[in-house]
């Protein structure tokens, strides 16, 4: 079964020079455990492959149920010299959260509590 990643996580993205960071934050502890296991560097690197990152690194901030992905050299020059509209990677988090994502048959424990 698949759900958009946005059902189980929120996030925010931005820049550091030519590198982008994409933070993905699970809504629940069960969701964080699931993402920690399934939202790997490979999954994120493949999804964003057209951006041309030289490498992708994942950091954990378990205190806020967060996974922080750093996409190195992904901003085509960054705020100073990129020709893109989104020079600072502001839209990357929302784009990642649109990804259809495998979830357990009963995803109740993963989605945002009402």
């Amino acid at each position, binding site marked *: 079964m698949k759900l958009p990643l946005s059902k189980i996580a929120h996030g*925010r993205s931005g820049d550091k020079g030519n590198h982008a960071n994409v933070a993905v*934050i699970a809504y629940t502890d069960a969701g964080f455990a699931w993402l920690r296991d399934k939202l790997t560097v490979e999954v994120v690197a493949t999804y964003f492959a057209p951006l041309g990152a030289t490498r992708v690194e994942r*950091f954990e901030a378990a205190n806020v149920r967060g996974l922080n992905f750093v996409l190195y050299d992904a901003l085509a020059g960054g705020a100073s010299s990129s020709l893109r509209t989104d020079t600072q990677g502001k839209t990357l988090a929302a784009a990642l959260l649109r990804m259809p994502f495998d979830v357990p048959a009963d995803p109740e424990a993963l989605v945002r509590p009402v």
Partner: protein
Amino acid sequence: MNRVRIGNGCGFWGDNLDAPIRLAATGKLDYLTLEYLAELTMSILAVQKAKDPNVGFATDFIDVLSRFTSTLTLLPRLKIVTNAGGMNPHACAAAAREILTKGGLPEKTIAVVSGDDIMPQLDELIASGHELNHLDSGDPLSTIRSKVVSANVYLGAKPIVDALKLGADIVITGRVADASLTVAPAAYEFGWGFEASDLDRLAAATVAGHLIECGAQATGGLWINADDSTRLGNVGYPIAEMADDGTFTITKPHGTGGAVNIETISEQLLYEVADPAKYYTPDVVADFTTVRLQETGPDSVAVSGCKANGITDTYKVSIAYRDGYMAAGTLVIAGPHAVEKARESAAIFLERLRRAGFTFAASHVEVLGAGATVPGVLKADCDPPEVVLRIAMRDPNRASIERFTKEFAPLVTAGFPGTTGYTTGRPPVREVFAYWPALIAKSAVTPSVTLI
């Protein structure tokens, strides 16, 4: 003082001009911080200052201050800490002094923190072994030395504390780390030092500064779950209420729009962060993974547990160098088949430039409305009624970019039906200032504080 309330009323140069005044008027603040300097702002200010020695600072601050004096009169104890000084903090302070005198506040003490600008000593520093290698590539600065327009060290909180100790009501700095604008008032009010025993509290104040430095991004701006009930039209700007032990609460003025909750604060905590266990500032390395968040009321999140992860003996240096020219222009292409027509229009555009004998170091075509903001990742799943065609070019040769800007208008008559939106004229050509991050030994830099 038991608690010190620090509010940030400006997250970048270009932020809402009324926010600082509204925040100060309703936030019961001890300190108002105003942050104006993005990575490349300094290069633009450096070029301005080279043409006119009286400019080169964030003029929005002077605009804010001129409409702020009557509010300030009612808040005699409020202090302001801002990096509006940019490349020319002394000129900024002189302009601020004039405004304050006109506004009946001649008694305010203004301090200038400088020493961040190492451009005058750059060759001396290189000669004495400070190579200023690129932080990522490791290349020595000598490879682009002749093109450098600005070189600024990110100073820390210490010189701002010194300015406050001298009795400053308003501290105007050049380049300092954004979080240090918040660290300094806390360190001054609670008498913290910058030694090993103070690092956890400095880390806590750094977290507070990081959370509020982008203004409304802590209070509902950019929140993934924001909707009409979030009332961002009247968004309140963030306040960090700090205690001596380093615990603090993030909140915003009562009655304002926006939201402060675990989601907004978690998102901002990880904003523009690489390894969250090592957030480097001139004051301390903060470990964001130690932070505990707790909702303690409406629009109130308590933050505790912040730990330091050491301290470095280097400052970060932000260097900008000339790197050619660029321009970007747009046309609107209406459907049917808007996406295909836009792509073909771009091909025609590029063909005409090629026929005219122009080449470009880099070009980028976007069909906005068809998934262009994250190129290649998202795709249009319908035939949109219209799209925006945006073409951008970069080249060392200014004449090539000038010629590029003249190819948009012809498509209005010689392109496909539905081509419109050529209303803003030829797009402006701007100089590109590329970014060169580096490190420098703290011992090579001398911050200074001047009262004026």
